[in-house]
């Protein structure tokens, strides 16, 4: 049975086109079809949803959804940078400048193009669009000589583009034709709030403006003239006023199209020509174009099924509910958010102009079903509301409780309340039933469920919900989610901490003798030993290099330096607040030169010296201590740095001495061992140059004192810190941080940063405020006393070790030979040494 393969051509290699390829590969379609994919752009399919991150550090490679190897591996011919210019349906061929290619089946996945309003002057140099990587390159090039930029269009994409211009340091304005921003998603009240929030970011917002023409400017390259003859000048103009389907191939070959464009498809994604299918933003289904990725993916799945002669699920339209973060502002719209599509709809609205939050519910006339919802400023309620809406669940007696702030936190819908048909992941269309089936099929943890169902591997927005469903279902099946820290202790870190606190246990051996699992050899392991070492240090703050503690430490703590990939170490002396004298800077240079160390300035405003050999560490530190340095704990789970801006001492905007406060905080909390590393920052005014809102503890100066932010994080999973207390005096600030840190040390899990700890804390921020600020548990004094004990017992670990010859013996590379390790080989790069 060796029938020749049919030719399948896919025109378009965007997100949906690529998803179609993946679906086809997954279902073995390349057995049946010889597949050719045409892409007009020079780039392989990339993640357009996160396009604006191109200006905040991501490059084309990291946005790519696949590789050329993937296509080659599966025998798919990928022809990038080759635009299809015509469709010859009679001959069954597609035409490109390079040639003609026959097809048996064809898929149009050509997507859409940005709509540029027909304004005279819209084609001037420096008038650009925001859609592709090449567009972004053009914007970046143009921005180099520009200082001001305007985005025409205040919808979702327009605000994305405005964010991109801000990222390029342009003074940015948004011009919207409608009377408010995001007219599709929000109403006038929500729009007003959105405007306030976006203006607060320094973006000028002009609504109700129809641009009449664009001409030469006086102060800038362009001048936009509006309907009332008012003008706005800018060097760069970006049009982002909606999208239009790329349906010219269909038009020229007389495929059926909609009145306002779009290739008409049926439920199986077939066009009026049964040999041809269409998917994504070019496709018009029952009069609608779907400009989101999730419905596009659903169409791709249906199209793959159609091409393989399957009879799987048909396309049944898609929900256009969206949850967005635009310019850092949460916006959510669910279903009939305006309440104008359902007769008899009733509304609940909540507006908080202080916190700048707006929430609206649209419910059925009997108040039992959620028809739609609108959120501005805080999307926390989105997931729960989406479940009520998507699954038609009956609303609680008082639906307003879903959007009203309450001290116990709004009621959230538990995983058990969801029906089997509830969609958990809309990108990959995974239902709760699919997740249950995967668990019943043998998946025993979150990772396995994700691998099997692909849930939460798209936009990731459902991660928290997925976890709670998986946890709940595992529990319901009697799978005990084991919380033991490791095989040596049937306790969590918090329990071990309490045992140490209550029983006053001071060594690991005593703890494991009394509370360890007798089934083991009671040696401990690389999980429990460092965790217990940290607990003991948080409590008693004895030197970690003491004989009883040294076998517990990770290599970094053992040698008080950070091990690098070739077995050498990096050395980071403390530079409190990032303030350093010229003399000390010179010493760092001299030491680095003498010991052949690579030097790099860290993100925490200090200097890292890399490549130190184990046996050189004591000599290096001896010289550093002589110059007045002390250990920086870069190797420890403890306070790293307190970053600061220069503050009122020098800065014309500063309102407080941020450097002074940073030094005070760094010196107070240095050496505090904690469940994970801690990073602080202090900014001298609201411009926030120290980036305090991305730290575990962030302090921002006000006219009257200090605002305290907590539980922020940068790194892999960034989280904005939350405002915890305002206008604190120096003393109140320190007292609050004392309590906060000790409460974290006491209750967090092993290696749990404050951000994750906070997200898992029952009762959330309100609970934390009660405990710390109102002392609801009555432990405030105890926490402060314990912190004072740790502070009083602080001693520079390197200074302690250097005074003890027994401890220094540990720093020999070999106990029987002074030869250095010959396998550490370095090479020179950019004038410095690095591992070869």
């Amino acid at each position: 049975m060796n029938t020749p393969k049919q030719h399948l051509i896919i025109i378009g290699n965007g997100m949906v086109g690529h998803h179609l390829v993946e679906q086809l590969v997954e279902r073995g379609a390349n057995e049946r079809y010889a597949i050719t994919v045409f892409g007009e752009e020079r780039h392989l399919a990339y993640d357009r949803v996160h396009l604006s991150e191109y200006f905040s550090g991501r490059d084309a490679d990291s946005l790519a959804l696949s590789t050329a190897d993937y296509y080659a591996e599966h025998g798919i011919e990928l022809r990038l940078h080759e635009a299809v210019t015509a469709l010859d349906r009679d001959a069954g061929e597609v035409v490109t400048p390079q040639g003609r290619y026959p097809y048996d089946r064809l898929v149009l996945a050509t997507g859409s193009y940005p709509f540029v309003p027909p304004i005279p002057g819209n084609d001037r140099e420096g008038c650009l669009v925001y859609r592709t990587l090449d567009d972004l390159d053009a914007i970046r090039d143009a921005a180099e000589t520009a200082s001001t930029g305007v985005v025409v269009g205040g919808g979702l994409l327009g605000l994305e583009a405005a964010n991109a211009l801000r990222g390029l340091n342009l003074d940015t304005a948004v011009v919207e034709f409608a009377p408010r921003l995001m007219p599709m998603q929000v109403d006038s009240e929500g729009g007003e709030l959105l405007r306030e929030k976006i203006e607060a970011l320094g973006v000028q917002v002009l609504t109700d403006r129809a641009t009449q023409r664009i001409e030469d400017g006086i102060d800038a390259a362009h001048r936009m003239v509006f309907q009332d003859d008012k003008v706005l000048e800018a060097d760069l103009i970006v049009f982002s006023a909606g999208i239009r389907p790329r349906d010219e191939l269909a038009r020229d070959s007389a495929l059926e199209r909609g009145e306002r464009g779009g290739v008409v498809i049926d439920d199986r994604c077939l066009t009026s020509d049964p040999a041809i299918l269409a998917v994504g933003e070019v496709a018009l289904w029952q009069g609608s174009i779907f400009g989101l990725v999730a419905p596009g993916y659903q169409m791709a799945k249906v199209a793959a099924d159609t091409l393989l002669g399957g009879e799987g699920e048909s396309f049944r339209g898609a929900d256009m509910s969206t949850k967005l973060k635009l310019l850092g502002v949460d916006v959510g719209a669910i279903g009939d958010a305006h309440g104008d599509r359902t007769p008899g709809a009733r509304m609940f609205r909540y507006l908080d102009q202080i916190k700048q939050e707006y929430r609206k519910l649209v419910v059925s006339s009997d108040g039992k079903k959620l028809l739609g919802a609108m959120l501005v400023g805080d999307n926390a309620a989105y997931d729960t509301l989406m479940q009520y809406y998507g699954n038609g669940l009956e609303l609680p007696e008082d639906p307003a409780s879903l959007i009203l702030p309450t001290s116990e936190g709004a009621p959230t819908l538990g995983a058990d309340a969801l029906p089997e048909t509830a969609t958990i992941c809309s990108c990959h269309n995974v239902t709760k039933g699919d997740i249950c089936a995967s668990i019943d099929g043998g998946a025993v943890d979150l990772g396995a469920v994700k691998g099997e169902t692909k849930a939460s591997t798209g936009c990731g927005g459902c991660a928290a919900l997925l976890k709670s469903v998986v946890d709940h279902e595992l529990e319901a099946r009697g799978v005990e989610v084991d919380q033991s820290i490791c095989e040596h202790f049937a306790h969590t870190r918090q329990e071990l901490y309490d045992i140490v606190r209550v029983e006053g246990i001071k060594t690991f051996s005593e703890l494991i003798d009394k509370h360890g699992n007798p089934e083991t050899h009671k040696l401990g392991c690389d999980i429990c030993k460092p965790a217990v070492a940290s607990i003991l240090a948080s409590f008693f703050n004895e030197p970690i290099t003491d004989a009883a503690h040294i076998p517990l430490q990770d290599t970094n703590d053992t040698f008080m330096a950070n091990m690098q990939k070739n077995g050498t170490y990096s050395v980071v002396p403390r530079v409190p607040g990032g303030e350093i004298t010229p003399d000390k800077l010179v010493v760092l240079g001299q030491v680095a030169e003498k010991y052949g160390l690579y030097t790099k300035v860290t993100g925490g405003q200090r200097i890292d010296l890399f490549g130190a050999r184990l046996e050189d560490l004591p000599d290096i530190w001896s010289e550093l201590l002589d110059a007045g340095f002390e250990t920086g704990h870069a190797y420890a789970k403890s306070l790293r740095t307190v970053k600061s801006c220069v503050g009122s001492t020098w800065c014309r905007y500063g309102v407080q001495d941020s450097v002074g406060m940073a030094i005070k905080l760094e010196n107070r909390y240095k050496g505090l061992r904690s469940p994970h590393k801690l990073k602080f920052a202090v900014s001298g005014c609201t411009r926030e140059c120290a980036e305090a809102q991305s730290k575990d503890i962030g302090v921002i100066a006000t006219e009257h004192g200090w605002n305290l932010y907590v539980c922020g994080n940068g790194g892999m999973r960034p989280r904005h810190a939350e405002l915890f207390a305002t206008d604190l005096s120096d003393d109140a600030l320190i007292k609050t941080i004392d309590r906060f840190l000790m409460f974290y040390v006491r209750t967090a899990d092993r290696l749990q940063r404050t951000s994750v700890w906070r997200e898992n804390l029952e009762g959330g921020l309100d609970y934390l405020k009660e405990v710390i600020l109102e002392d609801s548990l009555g432990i405030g004094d105890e926490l402060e006393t314990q912190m004072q004990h740790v502070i009083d017992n602080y001693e520079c670990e390197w200074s302690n070790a250097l005074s003890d010859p027994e401890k220094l013996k540990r720093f020999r590379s070999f106990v029987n030979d002074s030869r250095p390790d010959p396998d550490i080989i370095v090479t020179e790069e950019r004038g410095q040494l690095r591992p070869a």
Partner: protein
Amino acid sequence: MSTATAAKTMTRTWQPLCTRADLVPYSGVAAWVETAEGPAQVAIFYIPADPNTPALPDHATELYALDHHDPFSVANVIARGIVGDVKGAPVVASPIYKQHFRLADGQCLEDESVKLRTWSVSFKGDEVWIEA
């Protein structure tokens, strides 16, 4: 059994390595040792016999010697790992990528195909001797 393996075994001899005072209880140190194949870096681990510690299997000597070279990171760092017991056997965790190696036979627990070399090692009075 090939003659080459037999020859290797044949040429191993006991030699002094370091002293008891060089060791760190419940942890490791590194040393150079001369072997038939040339100089080698060994990691020596010392788990004192403790009346409170239940007897370890293969724990006759209190001492273990393994390759100091970590095949995963290609750096000489094994002696600087954390000692512990996992699934019933004493192990060391590589300080770089955290794979566990059994002290008794050098077997990597995460990758069956990886095994560190081991040597016999024991106290003679206050000296540590190794058969290499």
